[in-house]
């Protein structure tokens, strides 16, 4: 996910402009000079300034030089999205499937993605969710969803 400073600076400029524009459209409080619009507009203009400076490469000399990385195929970086996908899965599946099944899938998939052997991933996926359920449901009283498979306690 290495992005050149020109791109990230540009993104900041766009974001800053959107913030300032969005802020300026907020309704003012009658009888007050400064209202909800002031702060987003201030931040927005700050972001635009920073974005321009970053895109121009000012301040680079403060950054630590990057370490050389081993070459990887292009899809290698996409592996970083696995945790996000699993969290998304939790959000969508924990209600219908229940906590135990969802958690087991997440642990199993994450372990495999990190290169665990089946002899580690399977026991982990079987043991960790019930323990976590016990701790959060029983001790901390978090209402974890039951779904298809209810815990025996």
């Amino acid at each position, binding site marked *: 996910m290495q992005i050149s400073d020109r791109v990230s600076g540009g993104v900041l400029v766009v974001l800053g402009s959107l913030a300032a524009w969005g802020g300026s459209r907020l309704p003012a409080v009658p009888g007050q000079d400064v209202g909800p619009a002031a*702060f987003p507009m201030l931040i927005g203009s700050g972001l635009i300034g920073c974005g321009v400076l970053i895109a121009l490469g000012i301040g680079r000399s403060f950054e630590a030089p990057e370490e050389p990385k081993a070459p990887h195929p292009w899809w290698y970086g996409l592996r970083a999205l696995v945790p996000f996908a699993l969290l998304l899965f939790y959000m969508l599946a924990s209600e219908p499937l229940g906590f135990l099944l969802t958690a087991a899938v997440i642990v199993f998939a994450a372990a495999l993605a990190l290169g665990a052997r089946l002899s580690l991933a399977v026991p982990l996926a079987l043991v960790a969710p019930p323990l976590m359920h016990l701790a959060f449901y029983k001790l901390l009283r978090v209402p974890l969803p039951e779904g298809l498979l209810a815990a025996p306690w």
Partner: protein
Amino acid sequence: MTELLEGARLVAAPDVLIAILASAIYGLVVGSLPGLSATMATALLVPVTFWLSPIAAIATIITASAMAIFSGDIPGCLLRIPGTPASAAYTNEAYALTRKGQAELALGAGLWFSAIGGIVGTLSLVLMAPLLAEVALSFSTYEYFWLAFLGLMCATLVARSSPIKAIASMLLGLLIACIGMENPAGTPRFTFGVPDLLGGIEVIPALVGVFAVSEVMRAMVTAEPPKLPRRKFGSILANQWTLTKKYQWPMWRGNVIGIIIGVLPGAGADMAAWVSYATSKKFSKEPEKFGTGHPEGLVEASASNNASLASGWVPSLLFGIPGDTITAIAIGVLYMKGLNPGPTLFTENARSMYALYIIFILANIIMIPLGIMMIRMASLVLRAPRAGIMPLILLLCAVGSFATGNNLFAVLLVGLFGILGFVMERNGYPVAALVLGIVMGSMVEQNFITSLIKSDGDVMPFIERPVSSVLAALTFGALLWPLGVWIWNRTQGRRLPASGAAE
């Protein structure tokens, strides 16, 4: 005096003692695992603190963070991988000692001087906080605005990165804090019609995402750290007393620097360690030995980062302005438990404050025996496969963020902040500045807008009042500092190493 006894009684409650012991072990283990930082250990504890009594909740935060900062030294010393960013300053030094066969000396110095630093830092907290509370009672929104702004500027200085990127990160955090209707006018802003955004972005999902999920993401694309060979350790504390006497002066200097940096809002243990290591080298009689396995810098920096941890609570307790990312979490817990930060905390709730001091001292004392046990078991703990730990961390992130509000939207937020943190870190945008921006956004805005309304849009009152003029000068000093360094480098005609930005 009765209040001190009351405080001791509060700490002696069984649930508090159990909480201290359990969070000590938790902090030691998590801090020692490379990639799992002290901030992350503390952030993942927050859902647990919901169900604890106020004192027990504070105790878990204090103990876990102190332990994690020490135990970050362990993998740094044995594997040359700092367990927490606060250990990064002296990792090479400690590893050099290990290569010379003096691992016990390096680990012992980390442990012994961490405990001393923690205790000295606590004493400074005990002495300073009530004195400053008197001053703070006369503060108005102008002073609070400058304090919060100064904290944000310090957060950008700490980052060992481009100051412009740090400021951009901070502004991004402030922008995220604008979301919702928690602003002086109560107008919904940037909610895009999503009802879940009306209440604003919760700090805990943001923290967990930025510090924990992004770490799991990083683990996906980096090679696993090398395994620690099994080894036996000799006596850990054997030579520490000799070191204490020999390097007494650097030790005190480390403590003092740590305390000063901790008190500064926004700057924390990482910066304390870097600055102390650099000063130690500068004032040492034998600077040429630094980097080759010389304990002097280790002594000073180890004391410094733990001292800053305690004094970092001064701005947090007095003004609700976090000293670093750990106290940013602590402030959230304080509010949740009805111990709202502010100068009146020291007058109206003195026994809770005494309890807090006692917990600090206690945590730093039990650090020594527990730390020795941890060092002896380090080869066992550090052998735990990353592919087994990271999935559990991910699951904890999901459950923990869900638990903060029984709301599945928080799980999505955690994931999104994970991506944001990962991408920012990869491109040199410091995430600590982002987090402090999110935490302090509404406070900065509230005080800024209120002050402007009070003064009828006039900026003069911001700099006319005596305390606020000093704070304003400090803030602009922090803002212009990188420019000064840059010009100095130009005129000197040579480039300083990257650490120049942090000094």
